[in-house]
């Protein structure tokens, strides 16, 4: 089921949580709302769920498959939701938690207890929790609780699934596993899914489309590749992945401000100075990982840069602290902002052209 939110604004007292936000989700897509805390992403999710309502200015519209659902209360929207802290009912065991949505149906619509049992067992198998149906929530690990919450949310066969920071409270290893598992689960069920996260890696890895939010607005939306490779604003480039902001960007005579960014993997390290290379000194080399991360001091300005180079290069160049090396920027991104207007242009230039 496709979902579109049009012109959604929300104020809490004087603070603006959402400022005319638009969101389009195609049927069966997995979309990430990505942003720092306070960017409005959770508020937007809660409005989709029907747990919050936008400002009553009559401008905001919320359509599920073209049908306006703004006036429907949460329990009639047919939306499944997984809460940040799972919100499992602690007085019920795993089975009763998952069956809850089916048992609260009106008697006429309620499946028979056998049908409920079959559905719960089917879901338990899907979330790999067979045999745990008698456990109470407090007897489960964080990852298990999270999967019970998910099974409970999809047990009512929702058309849309919403997840609020689904992996926030889990440790790194479990998080990675669950992420992969959620992706397969979502694809199998063909569920239109929106999830909120502040973890850019999670958003880029998991989502079909990433919606980057900041200060109650959508900064940019697009496929992970698009937002990573063509960030629309300094905020997006700084929020998505590591980046070096160069001091050379500054206020120009005509009043415009430029910012220069270079990604760590766009820095090439040469053993010797030559041609257009810049002089830098190696401060640290971290090579415990798939790539070598090198901290450099750019000698002309004294600023610190992070570079990522293949392990083979670190080894073949015998990079070590204190060494002087040459640098070449493969890609540099320049954002220009004139006066008070916040329009930002992106120019991508290989460094050689600019020099």
């Amino acid at each position: 089921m496709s979902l579109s939110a049009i012109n959604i604004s929300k104020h809490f007292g004087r603070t603006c949580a959402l400022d005319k936000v638009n969101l389009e989700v195609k049927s069966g897509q997995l979309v990430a709302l990505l942003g720092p805390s306070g960017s409005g992403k959770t508020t937007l999710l809660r409005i989709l769920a029907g747990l919050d309502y936008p400002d009553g200015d009559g401008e905001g519209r919320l359509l599920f498959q073209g049908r306006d659902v703004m006036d429907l209360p949460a329990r009639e929207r047919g939306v499944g939701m997984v809460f940040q802290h799972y919100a499992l009912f602690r007085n019920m065991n795993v089975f009763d938690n998952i069956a809850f949505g089916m048992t609260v149906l009106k008697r006429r619509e309620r499946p028979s207890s056998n049908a409920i049992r079959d559905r719960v067992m089917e879901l338990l198998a899907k979330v790999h929790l067979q045999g745990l149906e008698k456990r109470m929530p407090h007897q489960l690990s964080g990852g298990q609780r999270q999967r019970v919450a998910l099974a409970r949310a999809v047990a009512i066969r929702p058309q849309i699934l919403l997840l609020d920071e689904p992996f926030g409270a889990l440790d790194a290893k479990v998080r990675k596993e669950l992420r992969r598992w959620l992706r397969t689960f979502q694809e199998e069920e063909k569920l239109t899914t929106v999830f909120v996260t502040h973890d850019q890696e999670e958003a880029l890895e998991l989502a079909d489309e990433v919606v980057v939010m900041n200060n109650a607005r959508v900064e940019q939306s697009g496929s992970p590749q698009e937002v990573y490779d063509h960030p629309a604003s300094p905020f997006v480039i700084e929020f998505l992945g590591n980046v070096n902001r160069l001091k050379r960007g500054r206020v120009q005579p005509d009043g415009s401000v430029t910012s220069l960014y270079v990604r760590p993997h766009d820095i090439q390290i040469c053993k010797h100075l030559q041609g257009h290379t810049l002089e830098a000194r190696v401060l640290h080399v971290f090579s415990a990982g798939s790539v070598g991360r090198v901290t450099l001091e750019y000698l002309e300005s004294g600023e610190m840069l992070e570079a990522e180079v293949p392990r083979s290069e670190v080894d073949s160049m015998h990079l070590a602290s204190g060494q002087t090396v040459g640098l070449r920027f493969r890609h540099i991104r320049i954002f220009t902002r004139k006066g008070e207007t916040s329009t930002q242009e992106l120019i991508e230039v290989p460094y050689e052209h600019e020099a």
Partner: protein
Amino acid sequence: MNKNKRNSSRRVLPGFGISLGYTVMYLSLIVLLPLSAAFIETAGMGLEGFWNAVTRPRVLAALKLSFGLSLIAAFVNSVAGLLVAWVLARYQFPGRKLVDAAIDLPFALPTAVAGIALTAVYAPNGWLGAPLADIGIKIAFAPPGILIALMFVGLPFAVRTVQPVLENLDSELEEASAMLGASRLTTFRRVILPVLLPSVLTGFAMCFARGVGEYGSVVFISGNMPMKTEIAPLLIVTELEQYDFHAATAIAVVMLLLSFSVLFIINMLQAWSNRRTGHSRA
């Protein structure tokens, strides 16, 4: 370091032995010693004397009145107190702090003051008593008056036991229930109430215990008519005033045993519902 020492040092607070000893001794000194005096005193009566003393119609009527009304008051207070606690915990409104403070007044007020105030209001010539008397409802000097006095002194217990639990109750639970299609009533019945039940039971037990032991506020409003509005604690005082120590302690022992059984049952109920909601340590 020997094994014993390492074992005991794993507790957060040291000195389990000392603190248990202290607990038992304190409980004995403050609670059990005076109570056992009542048992020893009655032991001198012999079983038949005891039985005759406590099965007199006047005693049975007083016990029935005290325990019956205390249970009713505890029940009414548990329901009403839950509502009050809900309003205080969930809503912000002007004057909330004042209402919150007013809940504790029955704690602080000398019970005699409460009794006099209630009598003034509900007596046949009082503000509320007069119009009620006109339509044939008698409150003061009748069992309903006693019930109102017991409800008055018990309310803070019912509110204060539930309120903190409600304040800590995650609103995500209610939202999760709504997202799964449950109506408000179903959410309350199946999600909220089971979590609140242990504290509601605690409030019930405290209200009940307070009601059974209440004296000061009741004697003014009840009228103290034997067989009709005479409560058990008052009967004990009456017996004492007639220097019938045996009869007085016999009634006291029956009250003790009855109270203890009711409180014990409530405790068991609580442990049971705690286990169901996953609070237990096991």
